[in-house]
């Protein structure tokens, strides 16, 4: 009788220690998940922020300014149009007109 009790007591203790261990593991995993979720969220907002920044670098205002000042480009105008006619299957410039407004 006392031997059975003793065995049961050992079993209960092992089980209790196992429970503590599982609980501990579960908690550290939860912490891990939470950290990863936060990281994901942070990266997401970072991505949003960079998206906006990229857009801010590519607004028509800025593009036009850079094109004008650094690349010395100008707005296209149909006043400068080259006409091409198709003859014999190949396009060759037949007439070119350069007209300035």
């Amino acid at each position, binding site marked *: 009788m006392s031997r059975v009790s003793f065995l049961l007591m050992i079993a209960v203790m092992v089980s209790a220690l196992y429970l503590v261990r599982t609980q501990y593991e579960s908690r550290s995993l939860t912490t891990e998940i*939470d950290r990863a979720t936060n990281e994901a969220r942070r990266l997401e907002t970072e991505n949003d922020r960079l998206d906006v920044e990229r857009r801010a670098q590519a607004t028509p205002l800025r593009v036009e300014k850079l094109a004008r000042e650094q690349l010395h480009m100008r707005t296209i105008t149909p006043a400068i149009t080259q006409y091409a006619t198709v003859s014999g299957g190949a396009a060759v410039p037949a007439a070119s007109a350069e*007209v*300035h407004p």
Partner: protein
Amino acid sequence: MSSRSVQYTSSPLLASKTPIWRSQFIVAVIAAGFLGLVARAAYVQVIDNAFFKRQGTVRFVRTLDLPANRGRILDRNGNILASSVPVPSIWANPEDIERDPVKLKALAKLLGMTGAELDKKLQDEDKIFVWLKRQVDESVAKDIAALKIKGVYDRKEYKRIYPEGESVAHVVGFTNVENLGQEGVELTFNKDLGGRAGSRRVIKDRLGRVVEDIGEMVPPVDGQDLQLSIDSKVQYFAYEKIKESVVTNKAVAGSVVVLDIKTGEVLALVNYPSYSPGKRGSLSGAQLRNRALTDTFEPGSTMKPLVVGLALEKGIVKPETLIQTAPGKLQMGTATITDAHPHGVLSVNEVIQKSSNVGTVKIAMQMQPHDMWEVFTQMGLGQKPQVPFPGAVAGKVRAYKTWRPIEQATMSYGYGLSTSLFQLAQAYTVFAHDGEMVPMSLVKTNQAQVSGARVFSSQNAAAIRNMLHMVTIQGGTAPKAQTMGYSVGGKTGTAHKVEGKGYASKKYRGFFVGIAPIDNPRIVVAVMVDEPTNGAYFGGDVAAPVFSQTVQQTLRMMGVQPDMAVKPQVVTKVEKESF
């Protein structure tokens, strides 16, 4: 020294007979004490355990707010017009802030305020939380953290960023520091954009790490993205052009509306002066007004095509019908209606082309007030446009029963009623869309084609388009509306501004509404320049050039094939317009 043996066992102290009940009594008292403890333990742990449970919970269970992201606002091509990004906000605990004058001085400098201002914020030592400055730059927050002042903290908040800036400010609007929409579509669609915050209950350990979730988590619902029908390139270009026109004509303000008549979408809605939504330090009402929708004015000559359209529809005239407009004056009761200069006999086509008031009145007086009123109403005048925008106005068209004949006459050339630029543009979609009034949308529709309520037959709409085209060629009032590569048509308008009870003698508003390409229309563009003071003030001079440039860029961006051979820009003699 003599000794005497002591018999302890026979000490007289022990001789007294102690009654047994005393020891029993002690045992009973101690036992009762233990029983009491057991009972109390049972009571707090089993029967009434709520209090201590709650106390325990308070110490390690936390409710975390899960903030929802506010949705982005995009243009029709998916470019970002508004988006939220997290930025630091600086707060302090005045109760236990470290009051080191050197550090506080450095802090004030970083926050961009004077030492006195900072002291004022921190003076109330009973408070445990005051914002020092909300939504500061990341670098500023880093510098402040580097000062290591005890009791000064930062926390992340969402800030709205508007990369396109001024050009689209009136459409998009802005939010306040609490992320609630205050103007524009930010306000109208605040609910959809806002989303709903969620929450979760967790157990935190000593280090503040989350170790366990308790109960159900309420996930946050992010706000929906909103895709507008606006094309940011068209918007920008129109903004630059109207700005240029306002500056060169020394005007007060200007607006442009670009509508896609196939899909009923608003491609651009621009006002100048504008503001930068990110920097709203010193805003004036003039900058904030979305004039294209909130300002009404008398539409002047731009009403004439509506009246002539109705006359064609009723069979009163044909485009070739001749009308005597000489001597350029028409007496109605005590009032005289005049043309800028006498024209003689004109066809109906030429009445529009040369913008003759006398000719238009002669046509209008053959019609019933009720019919005119009905057409005006069908074309959206006097009615609030169906665009989701705060502050859009209806304009004014009085009930036809109250019209006196002279009023019917003046209304036919655009005086005595009022409209916003947006309504005017929308009315012209009737001519562009083969006689149908197209419903307008500020949100991208993804429809290839829309249809609307019929106002005119498609032949009559085409006839009016032809007249509008004549306005822009030799002999018309707006040759400056011509644009290379595309055929256009439109109508100029110039109106005296109303001031007090009458018309201001030297204050004008010049505008132009037009359609392009004229044979197979894609867009309607309306341009208004308010109070030009640099000499030119006719719609054909101040507004038509903006129309021309906007049309050209817009159609090119939309990939519409030019319908005209390119010729050098023809500048013809301008016909003087009546107003």
